[in-house]
C-alpha cells in the first residue's frame, strides 16, 4: 500500500434527496467503496448515470457537488488523508496535486477570460511555476495536445475555439500545474465521434508522456478500454467488479459487467423497400431566416412503411433541421415532401389535422418534452382527445393500453414526470406519439441522453412496436451502433448534404467515401489497442497520400 498515490478506503457519500410531495431526505449514494491507484496508472471508473462515478471522482478532490457530502471513509493522497485538515488544506491540494477535467469544457471555461489566463491560473496561484514558466508550459502542452498555433492559442477566448479544441485546452489546464493525479470526468462524451477519437488520442498521449496518474470516468466501456490500465465497474454506488482492462473486457466475472460488455448486440434483419414509400423527401433545400447559407442542400430520401431510415451525421450536419423541414417547422426554400401519396404543405399552418396526426415526433430530451405539472395520464391523454375525441372511461382504458405497450404497468397513470427515471420518461414520450396512431414517427436522438442498457431497452421497445403497429421511423442519431441495431436504410449527412444513402448493407459495406470511412472507423470498438490501430492506420494513409 505504500506506493499508492491515491488510496480510497470505505468511502461513503451522502446527498439530500427531494422526493416530490415529501420532506427532503438524507440518502447515501456511495456505499463504502475502496480502491487504490498507483503512480502513473490510469484507472477507469465505469457505470451508468447514478452509479456514483463522478461523485467518487470529485471526492478525490474533497469536493461535493450541490448538496453532496462525504459522510464516511478516508481518501489518502500522497500519504495524507485529505478529508482531515479542513478547507484550507483541501484548497492547497486542489489545482496543485489533483486537477479535474470536466465533461463539458464549453461550460467549464469562464467565457469572460482568455484561455491562457485560465490554463495557467492554478499553477501560478499555487506558486508551482512563475507566470512565464506556466505560460511556457501551457504553450508546450497546447502543442502536445495537437492544438493549432500553440504560441497564440491561449490568447483566444473560449467561444473562439471549437468544442474539441476546448476539451484539449481543458486537459492542458489540468496538466499545467504538474499534478500527481488528474480526474477526467467524461471528457469526450459531449464530442462528435470523429472529434472524440482525436481528443482521446491526445489525452492518452499526454497522460503517457507526463507520467501522471489518472481516474478516467465514463459510461462508455469501449472508450475506457482504450485509455485505462485498470477498470472499476460501479453500480448504484457500489463496486461491482475491479480488474485489469484486459480482464474486464475479455473475461468479465459479474453478470452486470457482462451485460455492459455485450450491450448493443441487437440483431436486426433489414427489410426490403416497398414500391410505395410513406415519406418521400424530394430535392429539399432549406435555410434559416437571416442566414446566408443553406443548412439543407438538395436532400432526397425515402422511407418505406413499417421500416426505419436512420439519418446519421455529426452535430451541425443538418439532421435535426431535416426533421424540422419534414414536420413543417422550417418550410423548405425548394423541393417537395410527399407523405402517404399526398404532397404536404411546406408550412405547419397549411397542414390538416390528419397530416399532423399521422406524423409524430419523439425528442432527445424527454425531460423538457413533457409538461412537469401534468400527470402521465394527462400527457398521453391529450392526443387521444385532440385527434380522436376520446373522453372519460374510454380514454382511460386507451391510456392504460398504451402504458402496457410501453411496458409500464398500473400506477404510472397518475404519476408526474419528476417521479420517473430517464428511460421511463422516454417511454411515456413514445406512448404519447403512439397515441395518435401515426404512420410515421421522427425519433430525434431519442437514446442519446440514456445509459447504454436503458437505451438498449428503448430500442428493443421501438422495434417491437414497429413490428406490431407497422409504424415507420425516421431515426436521427450520431451513434452508429444504434444505426446498426435498428436501421433498414441509412442516409449519411455531412454539412447539409446526404453524402451516402442506401440500404443498411450497402451503406455499411466498402467501398466507402472518405467521410463515411472516417465516421465508421471513429466509433470506438470494445477491444484493447483499437485506438492505436486506427491512429496508426490513419497516419499510414496520410503518409501514403
Amino acid at each position: 500500500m505504500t506506493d499508492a498515490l491515491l488510496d480510497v478506503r470505505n468511502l461513503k457519500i451522502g446527498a439530500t434527496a427531494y422526493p416530490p410531495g415529501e420532506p427532503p431526505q438524507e440518502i447515501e449514494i456511495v456505499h463504502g467503496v475502496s480502491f487504490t491507484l498507483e503512480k502513473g496508472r490510469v484507472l477507469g471508473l465505469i457505470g451508468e448515470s447514478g452509479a456514483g462515478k463522478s461523485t467518487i471522482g470529485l471526492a478525490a478532490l474533497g469536493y461535493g457537488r450541490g448538496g453532496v457530502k462525504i459522510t464516511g471513509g478516508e481518501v489518502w493522497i500522497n500519504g495524507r488523508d485529505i478529508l482531515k485538515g479542513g478547507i484550507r488544506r483541501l484548497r492547497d491540494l486542489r489545482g496543485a496535486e489533483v486537477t479535474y477535467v470536466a465533461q463539458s469544457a464549453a461550460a467549464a471555461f469562464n467565457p469572460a477570460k482568455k484561455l491562457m489566463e485560465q490554463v495557467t491560473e492554478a499553477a501560478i496561484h499555487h506558486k508551482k511555476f512563475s507566470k512565464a514558466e506556466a505560460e511556457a508550459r501551457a504553450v508546450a502542452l497546447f502543442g502536445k495536445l495537437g492544438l493549432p498555433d500553440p504560441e497564440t492559442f491561449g490568447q483566444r477566448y473560449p467561444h473562439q475555439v471549437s468544442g474539441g479544441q476546448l476539451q484539449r485546452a481543458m486537459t492542458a489546464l489540468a496538466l499545467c500545474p504538474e499534478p500527481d493525479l488528474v480526474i477526467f470526468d467524461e471528457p469526450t462524451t459531449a464530442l462528435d465521434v470523429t472529434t472524440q477519437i482525436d481528443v482521446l488520442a491526445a489525452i492518452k498521449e499526454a497522460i503517457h508522456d507526463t507520467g501522471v496518474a489518472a481516474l478516467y470516468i465514463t459510461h462508455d466501456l469501449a472508450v475506457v478500454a482504450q485509455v485505462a490500465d485498470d477498470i472499476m465497474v460501479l453500480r448504484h454506488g457500489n463496486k461491482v467488479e475491479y480488474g485489469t482492462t484486459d480482464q474486464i473486457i475479455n473475461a468479465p466475472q459479474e453478470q452486470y459487467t457482462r451485460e455492459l460488455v455485450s450491450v448493443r448486440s441487437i440483431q436486426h434483419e433489414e427489410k426490403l423497400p416497398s414500391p410505395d414509400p410513406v415519406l418521400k423527401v424530394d430535392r429539399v433545400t432549406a435555410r434559416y431566416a437571416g442566414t446566408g447559407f443553406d443548412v439543407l442542400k438538395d436532400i432526397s430520401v425515402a422511407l418505406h412503411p413499417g421500416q426505419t431510415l436512420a439519418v446519421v451525421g455529426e452535430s451541425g450536419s443538418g439532421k435535426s433541421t431535416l426533421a424540422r423541414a419534414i414536420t413543417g417547422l422550417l418550410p423548405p426554400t425548394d423541393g417537395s415532401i410527399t407523405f402517404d401519396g399526398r404532397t404536404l404543405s411546406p408550412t405547419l399552418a397549411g397542414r390538416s389535422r390528419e397530416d399532423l396526426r399521422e406524423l409524430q415526433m419523439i425528442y432527445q430530451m424527454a425531460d423538457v418534452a413533457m409538461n412537469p405539472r401534468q400527470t402521465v395520464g394527462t400527457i398521453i391523454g391529450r392526443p387521444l382527445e385532440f385527434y380522436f375525441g376520446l373522453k372519460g372511461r374510454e380514454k382511460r382504458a386507451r391510456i392504460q393500453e398504451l402504458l402496457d405497450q410501453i411496458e409500464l404497468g398500473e400506477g404510472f397513470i397518475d404519476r408526474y414526470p419528476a417521479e420517473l427515471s430517464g428511460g421511463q420518461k422516454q417511454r411515456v414520450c413514445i406512448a404519447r406519439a403512439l397515441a395518435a396512431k401515426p404512420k410515421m414517427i421522427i425519433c430525434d436522438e431519442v437514446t442519446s441522453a440514456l445509459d447504454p442498457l436503458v437505451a438498449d431497452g428503448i430500442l428493443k421497445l421501438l422495434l417491437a412496436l414497429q413490428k406490431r403497429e407497422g409504424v415507420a421511423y425516421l431515426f436521427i442519431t450520431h451513434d452508429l451502433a444504434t444505426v446498426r441495431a435498428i436501421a433498414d436504410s441509412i442516409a449519411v449527412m455531412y454539412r447539409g448534404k446526404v453524402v451516402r444513402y442506401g440500404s443498411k448493407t450497402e451503406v455499411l459495406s466498402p467501398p466507402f467515401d472518405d467521410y463515411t470511412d472516417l465516421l465508421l472507423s471513429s466509433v470506438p470498438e470494445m477491444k484493447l489497442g483499437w485506438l492505436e490501430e486506427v491512429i496508426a492506420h490513419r497516419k499510414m494513409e496520410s503518409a501514403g497520400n
Partner: protein
Amino acid sequence: MSPAIKLIAQRIALGLLLLFLVSILIFVGTLILPGDVAQSILGQSATPEALANLRRDLGLNDPAFTRYINWLTGIFHGDLGTALTSGQDIATAIGSRMSNTLFLAFWAAVISVPLAILLGLTAVRYKDRWPDKLISAVTLASISVPEFMIGYIIMYFIGVKLRWFPSVAMINDSMSLGEKLSAVAMPVMVLTLVVLAHMMRMTRAAILNVMQSPYIETAELKGLNSFMVIFRHAFPNSVAPIVNVVMLNMAYLVVGVVVIEVVFTYPGMGQYLVDHVSKRDVPVVQACGLIFAAVYIVLNMVADIVSILSNPRLRHPK
C-alpha cells in the same frame, strides 16, 4: 466592423432618436398644461390688452410647430431660452444649479457604488450566514424608510446633537473643496443609504446567478479561495446587470434628489425645477425636463454600451 462597434453605433443612434422623441413629448406636454403664462406673470388684475401684448411678445401666438422648431434650434445653439418670470438666461441659471447637483451626485456615487458592490460580494461570500443577513436587513431598512425621514434623523443626530456637519447644505463658488464636502456630507450620507440597497441586492443576485455555472466549479477545483472565485470568475460575468442597476441609481441621484435638496435647502436642479413649476414658467420646465431626460438616456446608454463591451463574444468575434 466588429459586431460590438456596430451595436454601440446602433445604440447611440437609438439614444439620439429617443432624446428627439422626448423633446417632442416635453413640448407637447407643456402645451396641454392648463393655465396661461401671461396671466400668471401679470396676475389676476391684468387688462386684456396687456395680456395680449405680453402673449405677442413671448411668441405665444405663433403656431406650436414654429415654436417647437425655434425652441429646438435654440437648444442646438446652447440657448435654452429666457425664464419668463425672472427674465434670466436659463442656461446660465441652470449651469450653476446643475453643477451643484452633479457635485452632490458625484460624491454620493463615489461612496455608494464601490460600497454597494463590496457589500454585494461580501453577501455572496457569506451567503445565508449572519454577514449576509445583516447586510440585507440594514440595506432593506434604509430603503424602506422614506428619504426625508432619514434626512431629518441624520440631521438631528449628526447635525444638531453631535454638531459634526452643518445641517443646512448651502454651498457657493467661494467655498474651498473641503468646506463644500463638509456642507454636503449629510445629504451624501442620506443619498448613499437610499441607493445602496438596490445596487447591493442586484450585485448579490447577479453574482449568485453566475455562481451556479460550471466554470465556478472549475475555479473552486483550482484551489482558489471563495473571494478569489467570486471576484475573478463570477464578477466579470455579472457586470452587465450590475452596471444597469448602477446607472439607474446614478440617474436617480441626478434627477430624483429634489426631496433631499428641500430637506437640506441645497441649491440644486430639483429645487429650481419645483420653484418654476409652481410659477408656470414653461421654458424653465421644458429645459429642466429635457436635461433630466438626457441624463437618463445617456446613463442608460452608457450601461448598455458597457454591457456590450463586457461580452467577450461581441468584443472578440470568431
